[in-house]
């Protein structure tokens, strides 16, 4: 956890631990929203500074300012004791500051080498691209990062973890001394995270300063040399790694001890509502079997958690159940009726809807108001004589907003002005307004803050007590352990095991999913303290 000793670095005279980049009183406003309110922040050479904060706390805004994506409304950046203004990202990269975003910023249709040198191509004497030179540098970088990727490999053919490595290589090719990583592990498997952390340690040993943001608090704590916590646009805490642990971080982030544990909620499971029998789905592009003979029952009033790693086939299973993708073989019964071949809309009207994984891409309709988003799925029920009845629509919207406790000024508020958690409540509320018997949710708490996570599960448990069956996908073990009646583990397209969260441990469930017990995952005891907040 501690920084490598007092090793001096070759590049420049910077010593490990020395402050290289300083943000002084940085503030930033968007419209009427104050994202940052006078934040002081330091980045040290050869050390990892982890930035903690809930969604909307200002982490991403601060990163955008440090990397030149945005200009601060007030305050000053100081690089190597020299006040600077970063005009744009190119300017920042030239000064040695690079950022790696949550979504990789690579062109999938180009190969690794071309991506690494995109916009900074090496030139031959007559002005063409020096492919030989670029290939050589790329190979060297890949060796340095201990990742065997050939320079000519198409980026589209790489796994997410490898794409992340290519992003790092691109930053290194630009001689980056300060590397900002925004949620670098959100799409990585446990083993890929290990590789990434090894690379980060190598970079810091060479004097590179790392700024790291992650929602995976335990992971982030394990890599941190310094922890900085933002809340509501203000810096509320700064501690060296020795003095922090998970409860401390959560406490600083939320200002309260965020806790939810629904294991002891009364459960009242009824008849089988959704019955999936030997469902098999082949990817229509490649023909590869992604869901392999899956059978699951979901009872009325039951909350089933589908736990597994990325690529286990969970999203494909959910989208097939919702009717977006065709199934190859098997049977899906909803209240005893075979719903194979029905469209998404027909399934919704029979009581089966999906809250999708990617909220921005598949969940909210950005140009519609909160109210219109809420009523979209159940629109048919407010139609009188072919026209939308305004009275009955607004009544339903009001009730819907109350039911899912959306924090918005009113139904006419633009959906994009809401926080991630509130947007998710709207997406869930939209389907609840169709009176479903079974609700499918794919990663329902992705990218939303700790407080809202608890509220969303509280909502689901409340609906379950009224008889709703819930099947949700998660990659967060804490969530699976504390917010479900039953855990079903999926691995490589198959259901491998089932657990009762009251009688099993985190380690057992993770082992069944094929996740190695990596040092980045915490001990089971933390379940009790702050379930599902990792």
């Amino acid at each position: 956890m501690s920084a490598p000793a007092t090793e001096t670095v070759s590049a420049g005279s910077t010593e490990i631990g020395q402050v290289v980049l300083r943000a002084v009183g940085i503030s930033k406003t968007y419209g009427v929203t104050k994202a940052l309110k006078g934040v002081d922040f330091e980045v040290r050479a050869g050390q990892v500074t982890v930035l903690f904060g809930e969604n909307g706390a200002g982490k991403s805004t601060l990163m955008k300012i440090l990397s030149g994506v945005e200009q601060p409304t007030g305050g000053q950046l100081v690089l190597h004791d020299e006040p600077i203004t970063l005009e744009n990202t190119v300017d920042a990269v030239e000064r040695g500051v690079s950022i790696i975003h949550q979504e990789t910023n690579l062109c999938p249709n180009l190969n690794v080498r071309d991506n690494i040198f995109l916009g900074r191509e090496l030139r031959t004497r007559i002005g063409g691209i020096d492919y030989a030179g670029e290939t050589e540098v790329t190979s060297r970088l890949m060796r340095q990062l201990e990742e065997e990727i050939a320079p000519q490999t198409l980026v589209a053919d790489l796994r997410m973890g490898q794409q992340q490595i290519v992003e790092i290589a691109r930053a290194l090719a630009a001689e980056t001394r300060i590397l900002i990583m925004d949620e670098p592990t959100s799409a990585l498997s446990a083993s890929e995270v290990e590789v990434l952390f090894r690379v980060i340690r190598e970079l810091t040993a060479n004097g590179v300063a790392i700024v790291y943001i992650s929602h995976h608090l335990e992971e982030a704590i394990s890599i941190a040399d310094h922890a900085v916590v933002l809340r509501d646009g203000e810096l509320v805490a700064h501690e060296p790694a020795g003095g922090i642990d998970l409860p401390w971080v959560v406490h600083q982030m939320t200002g309260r001890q965020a806790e939810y544990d629904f294991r002891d909620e009364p459960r009242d499971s009824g008849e089988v509502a959704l019955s999936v029998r030997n469902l098999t789905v082949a990817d229509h592009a490649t023909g590869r079997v992604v869901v392999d003979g899956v059978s699951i029952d979901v009872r009325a009033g039951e909350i089933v958690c589908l736990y597994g790693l990325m690529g286990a086939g969970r999203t494909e299973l959910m989208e097939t159940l919702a009717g977006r993708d065709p199934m190859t073989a098997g049977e899906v019964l909803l209240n005893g009726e075979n719903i194979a071949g029905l469209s998404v809309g027909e399934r919704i009207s029979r009581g089966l809807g999906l809250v999708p994984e990617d909220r921005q891409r598949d969940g909210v309709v950005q140009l519609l108001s909160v109210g219109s988003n809420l009523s979209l799925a159940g629109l048919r029920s407010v139609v009188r004589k072919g026209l939308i009845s305004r009275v009955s629509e607004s009544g339903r919207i009001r009730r819907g907003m109350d039911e899912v406790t959306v924090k918005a000024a009113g139904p006419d508020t633009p959906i994009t002005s809401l926080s991630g958690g509130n947007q998710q409540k709207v997406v869930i509320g939209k389907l609840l307004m169709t009176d479903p018997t079974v609700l499918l949710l794919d990663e329902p708490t992705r990218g939303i803050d700790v407080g809202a996570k608890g509220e969303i599960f509280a909502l689901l448990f409340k609906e379950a007590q009224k008889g709703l069956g819930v099947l949700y996908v998660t990659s967060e073990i804490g969530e699976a352990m504390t917010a479900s009646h039953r855990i079903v583990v999926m691995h490589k397209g198959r259901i491998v095991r089932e657990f009762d969260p009251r009688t099993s441990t985190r380690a057992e469930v993770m082992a069944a999913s094929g996740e190695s017990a990596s040092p980045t995952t915490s001990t089971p005891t933390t379940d009790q303290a702050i379930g599902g907040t990792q």
Partner: protein
Amino acid sequence: MTTTNAPAEVTPRPQSPAGGLASRLRSITLSSALMEGRALLALVLIIAVFATLSDNYLDPGNLVTITKQVAFNAILALGMLMVILNGGIDLSVGSTVGLTGAVAGNLFRGLDLPLTQAIMFPQVWVIVVISVGVGALVGYANGLLISRLRLAPFIVTLGMLYVGRGLTEVLLNGQNITNELRGQEGLGNTGFFEVFASRPLGLPISAWVMIALAILASILLVRSPFGRWLYASGSNERAAELSGVPVTRVKARIYVIAGTCAGIVGLLQIANISSATADLGQFYELNAIAAVVIGGAALSGGRGTVRGTIIGAFVIGFLANGLVIVGVSPFWQQVITGAVIILAVAVDRVQQIAQNRGAARRAAAEVRSKTPAASRSA
């Protein structure tokens, strides 16, 4: 820098989230009002300039002429608006205008019934139904290819532009159809001009059709589930689909609507010029797109209104007529019209940027006034 503020010391947010949202909401309604207001302002400006330059511009006779021309474009633009709200484009409507005109003309000339020597002369209402039906059929073909096969709207309708124009030439075979449109008492196919070139209450019939269709389109877009589905799928098709919106059906239908509008314009136009010609409707699609865009719609879909589109059509109509009246050469007319279209979109964008900046400045001033100087010390 090594501060560890206890939560209790954190000052409460000066502004409640509800208040922030409310003011943001106000600025959004304001911006949409400004957007339509801008097109209206342009319209008033154009009328003011040409009224000063020419005494005849606001002459009732000229106003009727303008309204008639505007109506043709506005009817097409209403169909185009639906397509553009979905993020699509329909380049074929101009050709469809020509095609329906040629179909109607041929029906007036009489149908050679196969296997007999007889020639059938359909009644006018049959001709009207068939012609508009042909327009709808072209749209149906577009919609089927675009929604089912997921072909790009630009390519499909570009192809249909050629197909429609070619079929028009085939049907007319180099000859305009003029006298036959009048019909003959003995054949029982008279009455076309009496309806399609009529002027109830002094306004050309095309203007009345425009008004009726605009009201219909407004109801469809604002009050019907179809309209909501159209806005939703135009903004985010994947999210709309997962909400149970029949996105494929919506997409297929809007092209039928656009084709039907083109069919109606085809009939109105051959009545207007008393002739079905091969070049009828050429470039109409571009005027229709321009009207929709000037009216504040986004080509990316999900944003646009009937009112804005009608205003957009009037901007183009009043401008074109004004340029003719003050004697600007036809060559320069095109240059000016094109510049106005680009200007409309550019002003729209600049206005949006300015609004965002203005809001940011106001907020920044607010922050500065509330942030004590202490936070600036390192």
